């Protein structure tokens, strides 16, 4: 008893016993249950649940529809679990706090997700088979007349320049939906506040790429249509310093590009832009938080393309107005689980708005025709969507009409998202530019060239796409 009295003695020597000493278990239990109860209520407030994640650019899981089959397989309840966790109230705040927590796990400004893909050796030269022989299209791959008719009808329908809507005002329908995420990235490397994507050469995909370009060149043989091919390197081989670049397991892009070019028919004009981009590597030509190049990077590549064509490139200062559309945190930021170093220094979306007048429209996947500016002010877009400033983002079929008097000629650009940033420049050298995103468009490129009277087909493909067999397979389907 005496000892008990001694227990709570403060520095002055007076016994002291506070309410939370005797009741701490009660308070602990009560407060824990209160927190659980609050969690219970909050998690049931359905309106608090987000349905879309802006930072991850995806629709969140939906509450599953009931199916007896799914119930018996255990899928139904598992989907409810996923929905519950994926759409938890205050999701963005909580995941941000979590990534803050993760940033305390260590030090060092280099982060890398280890690659689980093994790269193929890049051969010094294409295999001994003559390029000619690989270009022979298999008989079964000849475009059927039905295909041709389809693509013709699809394209003739839209040859008339649109008049109904003003070219500078976006149409209001169907344009609010943010573009979908179109490319999944490989391993990501973060050095300081810059991120890079790894590149693993794939022989099968690279061969398929060269074969596809050869095939379309063969199909256009004698039509006078010139095929250009530009393989766009990614930032890891342009910006990353030499010593770090050598210590990471990423295939040599110049070697890979050389290999693919060497596998292509001599009639195809290859535009090797890696040396040019490297000579500008101290300029802002690639985003730090996104896998794309900037409009400036695309401009240097465009100038090289025009040189290959024997044309005069437009002048960046005289023919365009530089515009800043604010901060941009792109795919690298999202895919590194919101890396704090990237977040601290966001990219700036700079666009070059043409001085010449253009009209552009594109078709959405559901067939809606949208009239849209060639370069759109995306200042008000969510921070992750800024790259859609160029040519309306990724759409299966886009037509840009250069209204400059005396503009002539037309070309087809076959691209994935890297090509978008270059369209505003190319638009100045033709009257019509038909932009095909091969991931969504179906048809025959040679037929399209014939119908549109295009004189050039320009392939702008980033090196990362040329290691993806599925993408290359899709490209191959339209290269006929």
């Amino acid at each position, binding site marked *: 008893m005496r000892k008990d009295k*001694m*227990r*709570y*003695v403060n520095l002055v020597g007076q016994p*002291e016993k*506070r309410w*939370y*000493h005797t009741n*701490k*278990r*009660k308070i*602990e*239990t009560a*407060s*824990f*249950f209160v*927190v*659980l109860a609050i*969690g*219970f209520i*909050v*998690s*049931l407030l359905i309106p608090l649940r987000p349905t879309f994640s802006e930072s991850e650019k995806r629709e969140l*899981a939906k509450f599953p529809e009931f199916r007896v089959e799914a*119930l*018996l*397989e*255990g899928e*139904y*309840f598992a989907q*409810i*679990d*996923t929905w*519950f*966790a*994926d759409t*938890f109230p205050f*999701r963005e705040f*909580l*995941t941000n*706090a*979590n990534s803050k*927590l993760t940033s*305390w*796990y*260590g*030090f*060092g400004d*280099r982060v*890398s*997700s*280890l*690659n*689980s893909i*093994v790269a193929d050796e890049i051969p010094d030269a294409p295999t001994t088979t003559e390029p000619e022989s690989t270009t022979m299209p298999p008989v079964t791959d000849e475009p059927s007349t039905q295909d041709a008719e389809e693509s013709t009808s699809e394209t003739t329908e839209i040859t008339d320049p649109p008049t109904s809507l003003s070219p500078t005002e976006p149409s209001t329908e169907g344009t609010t939906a943010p573009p979908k995420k179109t490319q999944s990235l490989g*391993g990501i*490397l973060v050095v300081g506040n810059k991120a890079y994507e790894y590149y693993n050469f794939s022989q099968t995909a690279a061969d398929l790429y060269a074969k596809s370009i050869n095939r379309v060149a063969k199909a256009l043989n004698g039509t006078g249509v010139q095929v250009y091919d530009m393989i766009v390197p990614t930032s890891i081989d342009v910006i990353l310093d030499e010593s770090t670049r050598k*210590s*990471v*397991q990423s295939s040599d892009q110049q070697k890979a590009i050389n290999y693919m070019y060497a596998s292509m028919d001599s009639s195809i004009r290859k535009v090797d832009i890696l040396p040019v981009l490297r000579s500008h590597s101290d300029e802002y030509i690639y985003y730090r938080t996104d896998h794309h190049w900037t409009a400036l990077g695309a401009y240097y590549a465009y100038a090289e393309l025009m040189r290959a064509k024997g044309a005069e490139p437009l002048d960046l200062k005289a023919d365009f107005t530089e515009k800043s559309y604010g901060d941009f945190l792109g795919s690298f930021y999202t895919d590194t689980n919101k890396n704090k170093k990237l977040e601290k220094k966001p990219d700036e979306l700079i666009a070059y708005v043409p001085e010449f007048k253009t009209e552009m429209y594109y078709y959405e996947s559901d067939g809606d025709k949208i009239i849209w500016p060639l370069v759109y002010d995306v200042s008000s877009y969510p921070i992750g969507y800024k790259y859609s400033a160029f040519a309306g983002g990724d759409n299966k079929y886009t037509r840009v009409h250069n209204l400059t008097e005396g503009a002539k000629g037309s070309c087809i650009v076959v691209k994935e998202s890297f090509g978008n940033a270059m369209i505003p420049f190319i638009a100045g050298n033709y009257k019509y530019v038909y932009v095909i995103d091969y991931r969504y468009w179906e048809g025959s490129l040679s037929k399209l060239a014939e119908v549109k009277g295009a004189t050039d087909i320009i392939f702008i493909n980033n090196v990362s796409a040329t290691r993806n067999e599925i993408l290359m397979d899709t490209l191959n389907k339209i290269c006929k």
Partner: protein
Amino acid sequence: MVFSNLLFIYIFLPLNLACYFLAKDIKIKNAVLLIFSLIFYTWGEPVYVLLLIGMCLADWFFAKQIEKHRGTGKAKAAMLAAAVVSIGLIGVFKYGTFVCANLNSAFGFPESIPNIALPIGISFYTFQLLSYVVDVYRGDVQAQDKFTRVLLYASLFHQCIAGPIVRYKDVSEEIACRSTDVVETGKGINRFTVGLAKKVLFANVCGSLCDGLLLSDATANDASLFAENMEVLASRPALALWLGMLFYMLQIYLDFSAYSDMAIGMGQMIGFHYKENFDYPYMSKTVSEFWRRWHMSLGSFFRDYVYIPLGGNRKGKARMFLNMFVVWALTGLWHGASWNFVLWGLYFFVFLVIERLFLAKLLEKLPSVFSRIYLLMVVFFGWVIFKFQSLPMCFTVLKGMFGLNGNSFTNFEATAMLQNNIFFLIVAVIACTPLVRRMGEILSKNADNEIRFANIQGVLQIILPIILLLVSTLGLVGDSYNPFLYFQF
């Protein structure tokens, strides 16, 4: 459903506790627990819940028969029947595919290998029911008259799917009559939130780091990716392999013991006292000590129901080693229907024999640092066998650890991975030691004498469970990496 799941934490558990504490009568409390347990199990296994109920029904019936005909041949027959049914069902559902695949490759029969999905938790509840029937047969405990109580015992969501393997005789009284007070509930809350944080904040992170450094289990066990997997593993630098296995070693302890913590904690909240299942096993000095501190409820199961009935160490050395061999082959096989698990069990058998023969005495004479390093190394390499179901992959990793795949010591990625997680690694290692608990004990000792410490202790006790709960919630939102490792068990 699993515990580290937001739906469990914020819907299932609050509802369960509210209903439980609102119920006045033990009968209603038990009914609440049973209904919630069946919902819990059905959530993960909507069809196999019938298997669980059926197995309980059979063992409840056989136990009653044993009680009724005690001492006669009929009791023996009922015991045998219970064993055949329980072991038969686990044999079919857990090992059916494995046995058929092995028969097929050896004799070409049966021609088609059935693909039987493993019911979650079958290894845990089968063993609980077996121990119940055997204990009744031995007269250690009375048979339970009420089926619902046997069902509650086996299906109780606290321990049904990931242990500990609770003995009926340990909880039979608490099933019939139990009480709790605010101190006990508070302790249970502490234990539960510590377990939750261990799982979400440590085990899951270790797991995803391990997957990144090595291969995820899903990829590694995909036979169609074998060639690619071998190539990936062979190209990994030594540091990545060592680190990856270290994170795996941490993950498997933190994950498994976290489930036991949560089970024990939830039991304690409502007056159940389950036995401890882990006692800081990585602090052991010998393999035999390790197995007395690792998954204790499984070790004691095999000791009481296999090793000792076979004669234990009472029938001579040769027989003792044979008994140990059987126990460790079974222990391995219990962890999964694959040869690598058997090999893993027998790997420990070899060390246990060596220890019995001379090593234990030798280690005792040396400074304890040697025996600690010895134990950690044995366990570490054991996990390499455990991790890879394919032996060639296991060998590739072992070779790569010593640079024998022509791989480098480290590369940019592995170094970056280490740098980026070094603080986490240190804290995770500390989480495997009794250090934090010791600090807590010192604090409460001093709290009795000094007001400062009493203040700190009071505040910590109140806010720590809430902080752990909320921080764990962060790790679970967005449905990120959250594996359940015991599908194999």
